[in-house]
C-alpha cells in the first residue's frame, strides 16, 4: 500500500505507539496515509480504538514476523 510517511514505533510500548501516531498525523495533510510499524501486541487493539475515536481511518492491519504494520489515513 502507498503511504506518505512512515513511523517506526518498534520497541515502544503502550501508550507510545498511539502518542507517536497522533503526533505524526497532526503534521500530515488530510487524506495522506501514515504507515506505522510496531512490536507491541497491544497496539493492534489500541490503533483500532484510536482510529474509531478520532475518525482517522485504519486502512489495514498486518502482522509480519512479530511486527505489526498499520496504515492510517489522516482525516
Amino acid at each position, binding site marked *: 500500500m502507498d503511504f506518505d510517511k512512515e513511523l517506526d514505533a518498534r520497541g515502544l510500548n503502550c*501508550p*507510545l505507539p498511539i502518542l507517536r501516531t497522533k503526533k505524526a498525523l497532526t503534521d500530515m495533510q488530510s487524506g495522506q496515509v501514515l504507515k506505522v510499524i510496531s512490536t507491541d501486541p497491544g497496539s493492534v487493539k489500541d490503533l483500532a480504538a484510536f482510529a474509531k475515536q478520532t475518525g482517522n481511518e485504519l486502512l489495514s492491519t498486518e502482522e509480519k514476523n512479530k511486527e505489526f504494520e498499520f496504515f492510517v489515513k489522516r482525516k
Partner: protein
Amino acid sequence: MGDPSQLAMIDDLVRRRIDEILPARIEEKLKEIADAKTPSLAIIATKGTLDWAYPPFILASTASALGWDVSVFFTFYGLNLVRKDVSDLKISPLGNPGMPMKMPFGPDWFKGINWNIPNLVQAGIPGFEIMATSLMKQTISNNGVASVEELRDACKEGDVKFIACQMTVDLFGFSHDDFIPGMDFAGAATFLPVAQQSDVCLFI
C-alpha cells in the same frame, strides 16, 4: 375553533399522534447529542512515587490522543509529579508485597527470579530504596516504556489541563515556581464541578 367538544377531540388526536412520534424522535435526538459530545476525563492524582506517576500520565496522555478533554487535579503527594524536576521520583518495595523484585539485567533465567527480600532486611540496608528505584527505571527503559517526563510532555502537548491543589501547595511549603509552567492553582470546590461534568472520573 372554540367549541369545547371539538377542542377535546383535537387535543386527544394531537396527544395520541405525539405519543406515536415522540419516542423515536427522542431516541434520535439523544443519540445525536451523545455522538456530538466530546468525551471527558477527570483525574485526581494523590500519590507521588515512581509507580504511581504512570497511571495518571498514561491515562491523561492517551485520552487526549483520543481527542478527549482531560483535566488532572494534583493534590498531596501528587504534587510531586508536577515539580519541574521529576527525575528523582522514587519507589519503595518496603511493605509493598505487590511489587515484583526482578533484576533487569543478565540472562533470561536470572531475570525471571523474584527476589523476595524480607522487610526487615530492606529496612535495615541504607540505600535500598535508591537501588530499587534505579533497577525499576532500568526495567522501564528496557521495555520501551516512556519516561515520566515524556508522558508529562505528551500531556502538555495534548492540552491536558493540570491543576494543583492550592491548599496542599501551601501545606508542604511549595511555591508556584517549584512547578512546571502552565499550572492552574485551585481548590476542591473548583475541581468538583469539572469532575461532575466528566464522563470518567478517577481517583488515583
